[in-house]
Every structure is written in structure tokens, then in C-alpha cells.
């Protein structure tokens, strides 16, 4: 039950800057997810908060106290590791009780807490077993239990679900989130999986090369990405990026092999927000779900200027929907359409780009324009 604050935190390993000037304000009871590709500094950031890694410069506060030089055991945190790191020679009970025993809690209190946590996690019947006798999911729960019994101010979780199989991961995702709500403990969660980040976090911190790219709630990150990296990282299949030229009058986007007309009610908005880009090159970003198959559309929704004819290269049925990999000259995009699609592999299909939901990025700085 605490706020965590990072103030210009930097970590260097020799000449390599792993974490570059990161500042974060994590609120009490918040579930915050650090997400990014491997090597982006998210785990290092977490380990610095845990005290397992020294800070090169900057400050970390937990509950208002500077903890830069406080050893991990005195930071009042608990951590869940990717490989669970259960003590192999101890029973599940002892694994969970270990931290409390070292802190000299009375036996009755240890017993009460371990049993309560075990019940919460549904592992009461496993307390006498050793870790090697448990399945992956059960080990995961024990690792969580070990963190819970400590009743710490902050939970730190380093990709705790990535060693589970896909089905269990989805199940644990929901459970973990529910658990965090119930316990109300500030949680910092590291993952490389954008789905986990989207579904679990109250807020998401997207990182790349040690630098924070964006900190926002999941929907904002999805709908208003700060830059090309965030736009491409969050969402699956990822956003389509197309090199385009914006016309002087903000009416047309020239994609090279074809042109798209910007809807008339959008033109003044574009002219205002992208006024420095009129007549210049931009990167057009369109999410796959914002490319519609014309054959499946109602006529009143159709905007003929934004329709293009593309060839279906690959068709991936996903059950309720189908991913179409479309190509036309230099333009290649993925569209996510309903399973009723009439598109056939190798044939052309008419699609409409929903430019009301488009993103424009600066081709040099890669920052969002719209």
C-alpha cells in the first residue's frame, strides 16, 4: 500500500545505457505494466525498484522514502520471478513461510497468513509438497503466495506468466488481476506481451532502448499512440504503416500506387493539426480493424474516395475473423475482416480505409501528428 516514484533513474552497465532517465509516478494500489521488446530496460527498471540492481543516477521512492541505498529486504517489497525461483528443498508451506520466519513473526501468525494465502490461491492441498512435485501453474501460485504472505507495500512481477502454456496464461491473467484488486497492493508488472499489458494494467509504460515512450491507460495507448514504435508495438496484428504524401489542401493522401480521399468532415481537422505537413511526406498508420471490406459494408457507410483495390496475398482465418494480407504496388497492409469475407486468395478485393480513425506520423521523428 504505497506510492512508488522514479525520478530521472538511469542505469549504465559499463558504457551501455540500459535505462535512460526514467521518471514515473506510480499511484497507491495501481497496477502498472512495464512493456517493451527484450532489452528495452523494463526488467532492469524493476530490479532497481527491488534493489537487486544499483542505480547509476536518479532517485527511487517507495512510500515517500528514498530507497536508493536500502537493501532489498528492507524495502518492504515482494517479487515474483519468471522462473518462480521456489526454494527446491523446501515444501510449499516453508517456501511461503520463509520470509516471515526470517522476520521472526510468531508461529501462529505465519500459519494464519500462509493458510489464508493458500486458500486464496487454491493450493491448500499442496502445502506439504516440494516444488518439483508441482505443475507449472501450481508453482506459479506458490510464487504468488510467497509474495502475498509478506503483505508488502509493493508487488514486483517479472514476466510471471511467460512460462505457462497459453491457455493457463489467459486464465492466470484474469486471476492475477482480480487478486491485485482484492489485495489492493501497488503492483509493478513487467512483460513483453502487449496483450498482457493491455488486459491487466491500469496504466501501461511502453519502453524502448531504456527510454519511456508513453505512459497512459491501455485504451489511450491504443487509440492515441505517441509515436510509430508504440503504435506498432501495441495491438495485434500491428498497425499498418504506409508512406504517404499529404496534399496541399489536406484532401488527399497519395500512397504511391493509389490515392485516398480524406472525408470532407475531417479535412479542416487535418489542415489544422497537420498544417506543417501539407504537401509533404507523412507516415499513415491504419489499424487492421479499420480497413473494411466494401462487399460487407452498408452503402450509407461507404466513402467512395477512400476505397482501393488490393490483391489478397494471404488469407488467415482466425475463427470469428479473417486476416487479409493485401498488396498493391509498394503498399502492403493487413486487414481484419469478418469471417463472412468473400475475398479469395490471389484475387483482388475492394477495401475502404477508415481515415476518420487514421494516424499520421512524422517520417523523420516518428512522432504522432494526428
Amino acid at each position, binding site marked *: 500500500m504505497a506510492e512508488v516514484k522514479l525520478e530521472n533513474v538511469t542505469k549504465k552497465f559499463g558504457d551501455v545505457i540500459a535505462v535512460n532517465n526514467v521518471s514515473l509516478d506510480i499511484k497507491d494500489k495501481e497496477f502498472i505494466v512495464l512493456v517493451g521488446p527484450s532489452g528495452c530496460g523494463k526488467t532492469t527498471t524493476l530490479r532497481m525498484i527491488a534493489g537487486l540492481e544499483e542505480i547509476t543516477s536518479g532517485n527511487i521512492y517507495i512510500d515517500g522514502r528514498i530507497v536508493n541505498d536500502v537493501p532489498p529486504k528492507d524495502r518492504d517489497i515482494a517479487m515474483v520471478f519468471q522462473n518462480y525461483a521456489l526454494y*527446491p528443498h523446501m515444501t510449499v508451506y516453508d517456501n511461503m513461510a520463509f520470509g516471515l520466519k526470517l522476520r521472526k513473526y510468531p508461529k501462529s501468525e505465519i500459519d494464519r497468513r500462509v493458510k489464508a494465502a493458500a486458500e486464496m490461491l487454491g493450493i491448500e492441498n499442496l502445502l506439504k509438497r516440494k516444488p518439483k512435485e508441482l505443475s507449472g501453474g501450481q508453482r506459479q501460485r506458490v510464487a504468488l503466495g510467497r509474495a502475498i504472505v509478506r503483505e508488502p507495500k509493493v508487488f514486483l512481477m517479472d514476466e510471471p506468466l511467460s512460462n505457462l502454456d497459453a491457455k493457463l496464461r489467459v486464465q492466470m491473467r484474469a486471476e492475477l488481476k482480480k487478486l491485485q484488486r482484492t489485495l489492493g497492493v501497488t503492483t509493478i508488472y513487467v512483460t513483453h506481451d502487449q496483450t498482457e499489458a493491455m488486459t491487466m494494467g491500469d496504466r501501461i509504460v511502453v519502453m524502448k532502448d531504456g527510454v519511456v515512450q508513453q505512459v497512459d491507460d491501455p485504451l489511450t495507448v491504443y487509440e492515441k499512440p505517441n509515436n510509430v514504435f508504440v503504435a506498432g508495438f501495441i495491438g495485434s496484428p500491428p498497425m499498418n504503416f504506409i508512406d504517404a504524401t499529404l496534399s496541399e489542401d489536406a484532401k488527399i493522401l497519395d500512397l504511391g500506387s493509389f490515392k485516398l480521399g480524406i472525408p470532407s468532415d475531417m479535412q479542416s481537422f487535418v489542415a489544422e493539426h497537420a498544417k506543417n505537413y501539407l504537401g509533404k511526406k507523412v507516415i499513415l498508420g491504419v489499424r487492421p480493424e479499420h480497413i473494411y471490406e466494401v462487399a460487407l459494408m452498408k452503402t450509407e457507410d461507404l466513402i467512395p474516395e477512400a476505397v482501393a483495390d488490393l490483391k489478397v496475398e494471404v488469407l488467415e482465418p482466425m475463427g470469428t475473423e479473417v486476416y487479409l494480407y493485401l498488396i498493391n504496388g509498394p503498399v502492403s497492409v493487413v486487414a481484419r475482416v469478418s469471417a463472412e469475407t468473400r475475398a479469395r486468395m490471389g484475387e483482388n478485393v475492394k477495401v475502404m480505409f477508415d481515415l476518420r480513425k487514421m494516424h499520421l506520423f512524422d517520417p523523420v521523428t516518428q512522432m504522432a501528428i494526428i
Partner: protein
Amino acid sequence: MKIGRLLIYFFLILFAIFYLTPIYVLLVTSLKSFVEVDLKTMWRLPKTISIESFIQAWKGDPKRGLRGLSQNFMNSVYLVIPATILSAFLGSMNGYVLTKWRFKGADIIFPMLLFGMFIPYQSILIPLVQVLQKIKLYSTIPGLIFVHIVYGIPITTLIFRNYYSTIPSELIEAAKIDGADFVGIYRRIVLPVSMPAFAVVMIWQFTSIWNDFLFGLVVAPNPSVQPITVALNNLAGSYFVQWNIQMAGALITALPPLIVYIFLGRYFMRGLLSGSLSGV
């Protein structure tokens, strides 16, 4: 295919017999009486089985000035047990620090420790004796223990370091967060999972300390503190050798390491493999 199999067995058995012939001679000679021992009949089985030579080798024969091995056997026991245990623990602690609490210069210290393995013992005998004389441990069992502990450090450190590098460092970090300190982590986490490595190291150290001859010879000139390997050598008289007693003595000397290997050998193999295959 079948023929190939047979050939393999044929050669394996052939080599096994070849390697076991000295043991055969050792065994049959030790069971013969002195009059029966002769170069011409060395391959023959004893006419009557006599354990007299074992008794003589163990107890000695004061009338003929023959020192028995019993006291030296116990010397070796008093030497090998503390030296094995202490050098194993030192290696374990070294391995723990070198893998889990890496300090600046660890990459220099470790090769330097290993370097100790490559120094021939013969080259350091004179300074060794001088040091032991200075610290008043020369010609004592504690002195021999000390020497074996020091010379055990490279190999025990190497084995433990390799074993501990398979223990995930998250385990140590989890214990740090749980509130354990340097000693606590060693005692409560590392030590309890070290048994396979301890098995390997202790078997190794037991055998090499028990079998050592050179240090025993040089560091313990006094017969009453000599280990059994040196005493065995002295069992042979100056003018003639009672081969049956000599062979019996050799068997007694070789027995403890043999027993250790027969009963603990599979732990030795398992320990050697456990690092590479399973980790923790």
C-alpha cells in the same frame, strides 16, 4: 551387427582381465603362507587359505621388528576425515562467493586458485616443510590435515563453482528479498541444495587424501604419525620382502577408497552429471 556386439564384449572382457591381473596376484599372494610365496608359483591359487598375513600386516610382529599398520590406518582415518570435510566446506564457500556474490577481481582470483592445481607438489616441498616447522605443525597429523586442505582448495572450488553456476541466481535474489543475508542464504538455500556436489567433492578428496604418499612421506617423518600409505612402503624389510604380508597390507590400504567407490560411486557419477543435466 551381432558379431560386432560379440567383438565388443570380447575386447571389453579381455581388457578387464588384463587390468585385473595385478589384483589377482595381490589377492592370491596375500592368502598364501610365506613358504608358499615364490615367483614360479605366483599365478597359482594358494594350497591352503591363510589369513595369517593379514593379521601380521595389521598387528605387526614385535619379535621380528615388524610394525603393524593398525596405528597408521587410524592415522589415515584421523587425517582423511577432517581434511575431507574441511576442504569440501572451503570449496563450497569459495564456489558460493565466486558465483553468487561476485566481487571485483573475482575473475582473477578464480584462475589463481585453479593455478594451484598445476603446481607440481615436488617443487614446493622444501618451503612447505619450513613453513610447517615455523608454525609448529611439522610431523603432526594436524600439519598433514592443513596441507591437504590447502591443496584441496583448487579442485573443490572448481567443482562447487561449476555446480553453483547452475543454481539460478533468481533463487538467491528471492532469498535476499525474503530477508536472508550473506550467511543466511548460504546456510538456508545454497547448502541444502549442494548435496550432489558435496558427494562428488568428498569422494574425490577422500580418495586422493587417503592415497597420498608424497606429503605423508615428507611432512610426517615420525612413524607414529605416518599415514598408512607411507607405513605400507616401510612394511617391506631392508633385506628381504615378505610378499604375502606386503600384499595383505596393500589390500588393507586400498580397502577404504575401494569401499567408498563401490558404495558411493553412483552418487559420484550422479553428482558429476547433475550439474550439466538438471540444475536445480
